Structures are given as C-alpha cells and as structure tokens.
C-alpha cells in the first residue's frame, strides 16, 4: 500500500469516526431534550399509578376515621383489634366486607365518596372522601 493510499484510508476512518461521535452526541441531545417531558409525564397525576391507602382498625375505631383519596385509589382496612369487625356502607348497607377476622384485611377500589360503619359495633364510623 502506498503512503497516499494509507492517508486516504486514515482520512476516511477519521471522517467515519467523526460522523459516529457526532451522531451519538445528537442522540444524547435528543434524549436530554426528552428529559423534561418525561419528568412532566411522571408527575402528571392522570398517569401516576393508583395509590393504596391503609385504615387500621384498633381500639374500636377506624384510624384514620376520615381519609382523602383520588378516584381509582385503593383502601385497605386491616383489623388489628381484639374482636372481629366489618366495613359496611352507611346508612343504606348497600355493600359489606363481611366479617373481618383478627389480623385479616379487606380492600376496595374507590370511585366515589362514602360513609361506612361496622355493623357489628354500630358506633364505629368512617368516611372516604374522593378529592377532585
């Protein structure tokens, strides 16, 4: 191979390398350009995974007795009391969890605001409020 040809190969390799590096740079810029958008989608509440909330039943009360959630969230009631309880729609008894034994739990997907109580111990009351 002559020196001239060698130079030509080297120059072509150089151009190829420059093109490759430049392309990667453009891509990384594109990625960076997307970053604020991704960050925006991550905090957009309509795209966030639904949250699970916990209500503890102990000492004959629902804790918290009043809970604010978003539509589609799930509420889990855990019975940590010494006696069985239930979670029942108040005042119309349209639905119920059935008896919740000790240390057991029950969950419900929330679509609207409602009040509930324990039909075994009727003074135990709670409320789930769906925030707009």
């Amino acid at each position: 191979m002559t020196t001239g040809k060698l130079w030509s190969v080297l120059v072509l390799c150089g151009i190829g390398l420059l093109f490759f590096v430049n392309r990667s740079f453009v891509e990384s810029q594109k990625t960076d350009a997307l970053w604020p958008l991704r960050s925006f989608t991550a905090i957009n509440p309509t795209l966030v995974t639904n949250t699970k909330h916990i209500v503890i039943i102990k000492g004959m009360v629902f804790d918290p007795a009043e809970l604010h959630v978003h539509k589609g969230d799930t509420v889990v009631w855990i019975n940590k009391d010494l006696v069985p309880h239930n979670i029942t729609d108040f005042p119309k008894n349209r639905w119920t969890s059935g008896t919740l034994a000790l240390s057991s739990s029950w969950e419900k997907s929330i679509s609207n605001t409602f009040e509930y109580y324990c039909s075994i111990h009727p003074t135990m009351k709670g409320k789930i409020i769906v925030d707009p």
Partner: protein
Amino acid sequence: MKTFKINTMMLLFVAALFSMPTMAQNKTTPTLTDAEIASVAVTANQIDVDYGKIALKKSKEAEIRKFAQTMIDDHTSVINQAVALAKKLGVTPKDNAVSKSLMDDAKKTKMTLDSKEGKAFDKAYIDNEVSYHEAVISTVKNVLIPQTQNAELKDLLQSVLPILEHHLHMAKNAQANHKM
C-alpha cells in the same frame, strides 16, 4: 402551749380524715398476681358469653339476639387472646377471691334469668348487661390494670377497655328500647 395543743389536735384530725379513704381502699382492693389477673379476665369474659348463650336460647327479640351474639363473639375472641398470651408468658390462670366472687354472682344471675320469659327476660338480660359491664369496666380500670406487672398483659387489659365501653354503650341503647 394551749394553742400548740389545739393545733396538734387539728392536724391529727385532718391527717385521720385523709388517711381514711386510703385505709378503706387497702381493705377493699384485693391484691392479685398476674396469674390471678389472667384468671379474672378469662372468668369475667366467660360469664358474659354464658349470659349471651342464655339470651339466644330464650329471646325472640332481634335486637337482643344480635346483641347477645356480638357478646358471645367478642368475649370469646378476648378469651382466646388472653389464653394465648398466658400460654406465651408461661402463666397458668389461677382461681382467686375475685374470680370466685364473680362466679358466685353469675350463678345467682343465671338463676334469675332462667326464671324469666318473654319481655321480662329481655329486660332482665339487658339490665344485667348494663350493670355487669359497668362493674367489669370498674374492676379492669381500678383493680386489674394498676396491679398487672407484665407489660403485655397490661396492654391486653387496656385494649379490652374500649371494647367493654362500646358494649356498655350498645347495652344502654338496647335498654332504652326495652323499658317496661
């Protein structure tokens, strides 16, 4: 000198006045060990389970039957917890003056309940539930909790109090509906 004598006598009189309730309390409050306290807790709960079973046998009133079933379920659940804790702590519930006195009173009450029928039974049952829960709450608060040594047993007794208070509230509501 005369004033000093009068003052001393007055002080002694005041001291005597203040010491009277303490003496009375010492005389009436029984001293119990944790094993005896566990026995009182189990006995007190079992007695109300038994009253509930009598009510299910004798009453036709829906409110009375629902209340009786709740008493059976709740007090059985508390007994199970108390027995499990006693086992865990290696404590064998031990009969004592308080648990014996509870059983003697329960024997008399069961005889009274057995002798009544219909509305008279419903009234006698619910009246007894009010007074029994009041007495048990007072015993748990003033005798059992202050004397319990083990922290877990004390916690259990403290957790039982809101249940008993809730039962009392339910019993009073039912009592208001079954006045004769």
